[in-house]
Protein backbone atom coordinates (compact mmCIF):
# COMPACT_ATOMS: atom_id res chain seq x y z
CA UNK A 1 0.00 0.00 0.00
CA UNK A 2 2.73 2.45 0.96
CA UNK A 3 4.66 2.05 -2.26
CA UNK A 4 1.50 1.84 -4.38
CA UNK A 5 -1.76 3.74 -3.78
CA UNK A 6 -0.45 5.68 -0.77
CA UNK A 7 2.23 7.13 -3.05
CA UNK A 8 -0.27 7.97 -5.79
CA UNK A 9 -0.79 11.74 -6.23
CA UNK A 10 -4.51 11.45 -7.05
CA UNK A 11 -5.17 9.29 -4.02
CA UNK A 12 -3.11 11.50 -1.71
CA UNK A 13 -5.01 14.57 -2.91
CA UNK A 14 -8.38 12.87 -2.49
CA UNK A 15 -7.58 11.55 0.99
CA UNK A 16 -6.39 14.97 2.13
CA UNK A 17 -9.22 16.96 0.61
CA UNK A 18 -12.28 14.79 1.25
CA UNK A 19 -11.49 12.19 3.94
CA UNK A 20 -10.11 11.82 7.43
CA UNK A 21 -7.35 9.23 6.87
CA UNK A 22 -6.13 7.00 9.66
CA UNK A 23 -4.13 3.80 9.86
CA UNK A 24 -4.21 1.23 12.63
CA UNK A 25 -1.39 -1.18 13.46
CA UNK A 26 -2.88 -4.60 14.20
CA UNK A 27 -0.25 -5.40 16.82
CA UNK A 28 -1.44 -2.41 18.86
CA UNK A 29 -5.03 -3.66 18.71
CA UNK A 30 -4.28 -7.24 19.73
CA UNK A 31 -5.25 -8.46 23.22
CA UNK A 32 -1.90 -7.37 24.69
CA UNK A 33 -1.46 -4.45 22.30
CA UNK A 34 -0.78 -0.90 23.45
CA UNK A 35 -3.99 0.68 22.11
CA UNK A 36 -6.51 1.73 24.79
CA UNK A 37 -9.47 -0.61 25.36
CA UNK A 38 -11.90 1.98 23.93
CA UNK A 39 -9.82 2.15 20.75
CA UNK A 40 -9.77 -1.63 20.40
CA UNK A 41 -13.53 -1.70 20.95
CA UNK A 42 -13.99 0.84 18.16
CA UNK A 43 -12.07 -1.30 15.68
CA UNK A 44 -14.01 -4.39 16.77
CA UNK A 45 -17.26 -2.48 16.30
CA UNK A 46 -16.26 -1.68 12.69
CA UNK A 47 -15.44 -5.34 12.04
CA UNK A 48 -18.80 -6.41 13.47
CA UNK A 49 -20.62 -3.92 11.26
CA UNK A 50 -18.74 -5.36 8.31
CA UNK A 51 -19.90 -8.87 9.13
CA UNK A 52 -23.46 -7.65 9.68
CA UNK A 53 -23.44 -5.89 6.30
CA UNK A 54 -21.84 -8.97 4.69
CA UNK A 55 -18.88 -6.92 3.52
CA UNK A 56 -15.27 -7.97 3.20
CA UNK A 57 -13.70 -7.98 6.69
CA UNK A 58 -10.13 -8.73 7.70
CA UNK A 59 -7.18 -7.47 9.66
CA UNK A 60 -5.35 -6.08 6.62
CA UNK A 61 -8.10 -4.10 4.96
CA UNK A 62 -9.38 -0.70 3.97
CA UNK A 63 -12.58 0.47 5.65
CA UNK A 64 -14.53 3.59 4.74
CA UNK A 65 -16.75 5.02 7.47
CA UNK A 66 -19.53 7.55 7.12
CA UNK A 67 -19.04 10.90 8.90
CA UNK A 68 -21.05 9.47 11.82
CA UNK A 69 -18.60 6.56 12.12
CA UNK A 70 -20.85 3.86 10.65
CA UNK A 71 -19.29 1.52 8.10
CA UNK A 72 -19.90 2.57 4.50
CA UNK A 73 -17.69 0.14 2.54
CA UNK A 74 -14.58 -2.02 2.75
CA UNK A 75 -11.93 -3.54 0.52
CA UNK A 76 -9.39 -6.34 0.96
CA UNK A 77 -5.81 -5.12 0.74
CA UNK A 78 -5.15 -7.30 -2.30
CA UNK A 79 -7.65 -5.10 -4.16
CA UNK A 80 -6.91 -1.85 -2.35
CA UNK A 81 -3.21 -2.17 -3.22
CA UNK A 82 -4.18 -1.56 -6.85
CA UNK A 83 -4.38 2.21 -7.21
CA UNK A 84 -7.22 2.14 -9.72
CA UNK A 85 -9.34 -0.02 -7.41
CA UNK A 86 -8.77 2.15 -4.37
CA UNK A 87 -9.32 5.30 -6.40
CA UNK A 88 -12.66 3.90 -7.59
CA UNK A 89 -13.69 3.22 -3.98
CA UNK A 90 -12.72 6.73 -2.88
CA UNK A 91 -14.49 8.35 -5.82
CA UNK A 92 -17.63 6.28 -5.21
CA UNK A 93 -17.57 7.43 -1.58
CA UNK A 94 -17.27 11.06 -2.57
CA UNK A 95 -20.06 10.76 -5.14
CA UNK A 96 -22.45 9.14 -2.68
CA UNK A 97 -21.60 10.88 0.59
CA UNK A 98 -20.77 14.32 -0.85
CA UNK A 99 -18.30 15.29 1.88
CA UNK A 100 -17.26 18.86 2.64
CA UNK A 101 -13.97 19.15 0.74
CA UNK A 102 -11.08 21.37 1.68
CA UNK A 103 -7.69 21.32 3.33
CA UNK A 104 -6.49 18.26 5.23
CA UNK A 105 -8.27 18.04 8.55
CA UNK A 106 -4.97 17.01 10.14
CA UNK A 107 -1.82 18.75 8.85
CA UNK A 108 0.52 16.21 7.19
CA UNK A 109 3.65 15.50 9.17
CA UNK A 110 6.50 12.94 9.16
CA UNK A 111 5.20 9.58 10.32
CA UNK A 112 8.57 8.16 11.34
CA UNK A 113 9.49 10.19 14.41
CA UNK A 114 12.20 10.16 17.03
CA UNK A 115 10.72 8.41 20.07
CA UNK A 116 10.45 10.20 23.38
CA UNK A 117 13.30 9.20 25.66
CA UNK A 118 15.31 10.32 28.68
CA UNK A 119 17.67 13.27 28.27
CA UNK A 120 20.76 11.10 28.77
CA UNK A 121 19.60 8.50 26.24
CA UNK A 122 21.10 8.17 22.78
CA UNK A 123 18.63 7.87 19.91
CA UNK A 124 19.86 6.14 16.78
CA UNK A 125 18.06 6.29 13.45
CA UNK A 126 18.60 3.33 11.14
CA UNK A 127 17.89 3.12 7.42
CA UNK A 128 18.02 -0.15 5.49
CA UNK A 129 18.02 -0.01 1.70
CA UNK A 130 18.24 -2.71 -0.93
CA UNK A 131 21.19 -2.00 -3.21
CA UNK A 132 20.36 -4.35 -6.06
CA UNK A 133 16.65 -5.10 -5.81
CA UNK A 134 17.31 -8.74 -4.94
CA UNK A 135 16.74 -10.90 -1.87
CA UNK A 136 14.36 -8.52 -0.10
CA UNK A 137 11.66 -5.98 -0.79
CA UNK A 138 13.11 -2.97 -2.48
CA UNK A 139 10.31 -0.47 -3.20
CA UNK A 140 11.58 1.95 -0.57
CA UNK A 141 14.08 2.00 2.31
CA UNK A 142 12.87 1.02 5.76
CA UNK A 143 13.73 2.55 9.11
CA UNK A 144 14.18 1.75 12.78
CA UNK A 145 14.64 3.83 15.89
CA UNK A 146 17.00 2.41 18.52
CA UNK A 147 17.22 4.05 21.92
CA UNK A 148 20.24 3.42 24.16
CA UNK A 149 19.75 4.39 27.78
CA UNK A 150 22.28 6.54 29.60
CA UNK A 151 23.71 3.40 31.23
CA UNK A 152 24.01 1.71 27.83
CA UNK A 153 25.84 4.70 26.41
CA UNK A 154 28.38 4.40 29.23
CA UNK A 155 28.68 0.69 28.45
CA UNK A 156 29.20 1.46 24.76
CA UNK A 157 32.30 3.49 25.61
CA UNK A 158 34.07 0.92 27.72
CA UNK A 159 37.76 1.56 27.09
CA UNK A 160 40.03 1.62 30.14
CA UNK A 161 41.37 4.99 29.01
CA UNK A 162 40.66 7.13 25.99
CA UNK A 163 44.02 7.75 24.34
CA UNK A 164 44.78 7.26 20.65
CA UNK A 165 45.22 3.58 19.91
CA UNK A 166 43.14 2.34 22.82
CA UNK A 167 40.80 -0.44 21.78
CA UNK A 168 37.89 -2.19 23.39
CA UNK A 169 35.23 -4.75 22.57
CA UNK A 170 31.70 -3.45 22.72
CA UNK A 171 29.45 -5.29 25.13
CA UNK A 172 27.82 -8.20 23.31
CA UNK A 173 24.32 -7.49 24.60
CA UNK A 174 24.60 -3.89 23.53
CA UNK A 175 26.02 -4.79 20.11
CA UNK A 176 23.12 -7.23 19.68
CA UNK A 177 20.62 -4.53 20.50
CA UNK A 178 21.92 -2.48 17.56
CA UNK A 179 22.96 -5.18 15.07
CA UNK A 180 19.71 -7.15 15.34
CA UNK A 181 18.09 -4.39 13.28
CA UNK A 182 20.64 -4.85 10.48
CA UNK A 183 18.39 -6.56 7.94
CA UNK A 184 16.63 -5.34 4.79
CA UNK A 185 12.89 -4.96 4.17
CA UNK A 186 11.19 -8.29 4.92
CA UNK A 187 7.76 -9.45 6.05
CA UNK A 188 9.20 -10.63 9.37
CA UNK A 189 10.11 -7.75 11.66
CA UNK A 190 10.17 -9.64 14.93
CA UNK A 191 13.79 -9.18 15.98
CA UNK A 192 13.28 -11.68 18.81
CA UNK A 193 13.37 -14.35 16.10
CA UNK A 194 16.83 -13.28 14.88
CA UNK A 195 19.69 -15.57 15.85
CA UNK A 196 23.33 -14.53 15.71
CA UNK A 197 25.79 -17.10 14.49
CA UNK A 198 28.58 -14.67 15.12
CA UNK A 199 29.02 -10.99 15.83
CA UNK A 200 31.72 -8.58 16.85
CA UNK A 201 31.90 -4.85 17.35
CA UNK A 202 34.94 -3.05 18.65
CA UNK A 203 36.13 0.50 19.13
CA UNK A 204 39.54 2.06 18.59
CA UNK A 205 40.33 5.59 19.69
CA UNK A 206 41.66 7.43 16.66
CA UNK A 207 42.16 10.87 18.11
CA UNK A 208 41.54 13.08 21.12
CA UNK A 209 41.21 16.73 20.26
CA UNK A 210 39.93 19.66 22.31
CA UNK A 211 38.39 17.34 24.82
CA UNK A 212 36.55 15.27 22.20
CA UNK A 213 37.62 11.77 21.26
CA UNK A 214 36.89 10.03 17.99
CA UNK A 215 36.80 6.25 17.96
CA UNK A 216 36.50 4.05 14.94
CA UNK A 217 33.88 1.31 15.15
CA UNK A 218 34.43 -1.93 13.26
CA UNK A 219 32.73 -5.28 13.29
CA UNK A 220 31.04 -8.05 11.44
CA UNK A 221 28.05 -10.30 11.86
CA UNK A 222 26.19 -13.34 10.62
CA UNK A 223 22.58 -13.45 11.74
CA UNK A 224 19.73 -15.77 10.83
CA UNK A 225 16.73 -13.70 9.83
CA UNK A 226 13.63 -15.27 8.32
CA UNK A 227 11.98 -13.41 5.47
CA UNK A 228 8.54 -14.53 6.58
CA UNK A 229 7.68 -15.78 10.04
CA UNK A 230 9.05 -19.30 9.59
CA UNK A 231 12.54 -20.73 9.18
CA UNK A 232 13.95 -20.38 5.67
CA UNK A 233 17.70 -20.65 6.20
CA UNK A 234 18.31 -17.02 5.26
CA UNK A 235 21.16 -15.10 6.84
CA UNK A 236 22.40 -11.55 7.00
CA UNK A 237 26.16 -11.39 6.59
CA UNK A 238 27.74 -7.99 6.98
CA UNK A 239 30.84 -6.03 7.82
CA UNK A 240 30.25 -2.74 9.58
CA UNK A 241 32.31 0.39 10.05
CA UNK A 242 31.71 3.75 11.62
CA UNK A 243 32.85 6.23 14.20
CA UNK A 244 31.73 7.81 17.42
CA UNK A 245 32.68 11.26 18.73
CA UNK A 246 32.41 11.66 22.49
CA UNK A 247 33.67 13.48 25.55
CA UNK A 248 36.01 11.07 27.33
CA UNK A 249 35.45 12.75 30.67
CA UNK A 250 31.67 12.35 30.71
CA UNK A 251 31.17 9.66 28.03
CA UNK A 252 28.66 11.97 26.39
CA UNK A 253 28.26 11.06 22.73
CA UNK A 254 28.35 13.94 20.29
CA UNK A 255 27.84 11.90 17.14
CA UNK A 256 27.72 8.28 16.06
CA UNK A 257 27.74 6.80 12.58
CA UNK A 258 27.68 3.10 11.75
CA UNK A 259 27.18 1.66 8.27
CA UNK A 260 27.52 -1.65 6.51
CA UNK A 261 30.47 -1.94 4.19
CA UNK A 262 29.34 -5.17 2.59
CA UNK A 263 25.98 -6.69 3.49
CA UNK A 264 24.11 -9.58 1.89
CA UNK A 265 20.77 -11.28 2.49
CA UNK A 266 18.88 -13.87 0.49
CA UNK A 267 21.14 -13.49 -2.53
CA UNK A 268 20.87 -9.70 -2.60
CA UNK A 269 22.95 -6.78 -1.39
CA UNK A 270 21.69 -4.12 0.97
CA UNK A 271 23.03 -1.20 2.96
CA UNK A 272 22.45 -0.04 6.53
CA UNK A 273 23.10 3.47 7.84
CA UNK A 274 22.82 4.34 11.51
CA UNK A 275 23.23 7.87 12.80
CA UNK A 276 22.66 9.47 16.17
CA UNK A 277 19.87 12.02 16.32
CA UNK A 278 19.90 15.09 18.47
CA UNK A 279 17.01 15.75 20.82
CA UNK A 280 14.53 18.33 19.54
Amino acid at each position, binding site marked *: MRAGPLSNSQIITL*LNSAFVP*VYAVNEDYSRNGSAPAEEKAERDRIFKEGYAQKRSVGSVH*VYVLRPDGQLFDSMH*VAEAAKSEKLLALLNKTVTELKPVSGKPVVPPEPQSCRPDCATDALTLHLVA*RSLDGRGAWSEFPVEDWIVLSGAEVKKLLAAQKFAAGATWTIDKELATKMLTHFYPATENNDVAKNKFERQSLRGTVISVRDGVARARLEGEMKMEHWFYHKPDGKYVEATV*VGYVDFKPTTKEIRSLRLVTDEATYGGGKFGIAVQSMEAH
Partner: protein
Amino acid sequence: MKSLVLLSAVALSSLQVEAANPAASTREDAWVEQRVQQLQPQAKEKRLDEIGWAKDIRAAIKLAGEHQRPVFLFTHDGRMNIGRC
Protein backbone atom coordinates in the same frame (compact mmCIF):
# COMPACT_ATOMS: atom_id res chain seq x y z
CA MET B 1 51.10 14.36 43.12
CA LYS B 2 47.40 14.76 42.32
CA SER B 3 48.13 18.18 40.82
CA LEU B 4 50.86 16.65 38.65
CA VAL B 5 48.48 14.00 37.32
CA LEU B 6 45.81 16.62 36.64
CA LEU B 7 48.35 18.86 34.91
CA SER B 8 49.50 15.96 32.73
CA ALA B 9 45.92 15.14 31.77
CA VAL B 10 45.21 18.74 30.81
CA ALA B 11 48.44 18.92 28.82
CA LEU B 12 47.59 15.72 26.99
CA SER B 13 44.18 16.92 25.92
CA SER B 14 45.51 20.28 24.75
CA LEU B 15 48.26 18.59 22.76
CA GLN B 16 45.58 17.19 20.44
CA VAL B 17 46.67 13.61 20.36
CA GLU B 18 46.49 12.58 16.71
CA ALA B 19 45.69 9.31 15.08
CA ALA B 20 48.37 6.74 14.39
CA ASN B 21 47.15 6.72 10.78
CA PRO B 22 45.09 9.87 10.32
CA ALA B 23 44.92 9.66 6.50
CA ALA B 24 43.26 6.26 6.60
CA SER B 25 40.78 7.21 9.30
CA THR B 26 39.85 10.46 7.55
CA ARG B 27 39.13 8.63 4.34
CA GLU B 28 37.04 6.05 6.11
CA ASP B 29 35.09 8.66 8.06
CA ALA B 30 34.30 10.60 4.89
CA TRP B 31 33.14 7.41 3.22
CA VAL B 32 30.99 6.53 6.20
CA GLU B 33 29.39 9.96 6.16
CA GLN B 34 28.76 9.74 2.42
CA ARG B 35 27.25 6.28 2.86
CA VAL B 36 24.89 7.56 5.55
CA GLN B 37 23.67 10.33 3.24
CA GLN B 38 23.33 8.03 0.22
CA LEU B 39 21.08 5.59 2.05
CA GLN B 40 18.62 8.12 3.51
CA PRO B 41 15.01 7.92 2.29
CA GLN B 42 14.11 10.40 -0.43
CA ALA B 43 10.94 12.50 -0.28
CA LYS B 44 9.43 10.47 -3.14
CA GLU B 45 9.92 7.35 -1.01
CA LYS B 46 8.02 8.89 1.91
CA ARG B 47 4.89 10.20 0.23
CA LEU B 48 2.99 8.70 3.16
CA ASP B 49 4.10 11.83 5.01
CA GLU B 50 2.11 13.98 2.57
CA ILE B 51 -1.13 12.58 3.96
CA GLY B 52 -2.72 14.18 7.02
CA TRP B 53 -3.25 11.11 9.23
CA ALA B 54 -5.43 11.20 12.33
CA LYS B 55 -3.90 9.93 15.57
CA ASP B 56 -6.22 6.93 15.96
CA ILE B 57 -9.64 5.60 14.97
CA ARG B 58 -11.56 7.47 17.66
CA ALA B 59 -9.86 10.75 16.77
CA ALA B 60 -10.62 10.15 13.09
CA ILE B 61 -14.31 9.52 13.77
CA LYS B 62 -14.53 12.63 15.95
CA LEU B 63 -12.94 14.75 13.22
CA ALA B 64 -15.15 13.12 10.59
CA GLY B 65 -18.24 14.24 12.47
CA GLU B 66 -16.92 17.75 12.96
CA HIS B 67 -15.90 18.18 9.31
CA GLN B 68 -18.58 16.03 7.67
CA ARG B 69 -16.06 13.82 5.93
CA PRO B 70 -15.82 10.04 5.63
CA VAL B 71 -13.04 8.16 7.40
CA PHE B 72 -10.47 6.22 5.40
CA LEU B 73 -9.16 3.49 7.69
CA PHE B 74 -6.30 1.19 6.74
CA THR B 75 -5.62 -1.67 9.15
CA HIS B 76 -2.34 -3.54 8.69
CA ASP B 77 0.38 -5.65 10.28
CA GLY B 78 3.74 -4.14 11.19
CA ARG B 79 4.80 -0.51 11.20
CA MET B 80 3.89 1.25 7.97
CA ASN B 81 5.37 4.54 9.21
CA ILE B 82 8.89 3.09 9.20
CA GLY B 83 8.26 0.64 6.37
CA ARG B 84 8.72 -2.42 8.59
CA CYS B 85 5.43 -4.01 7.59
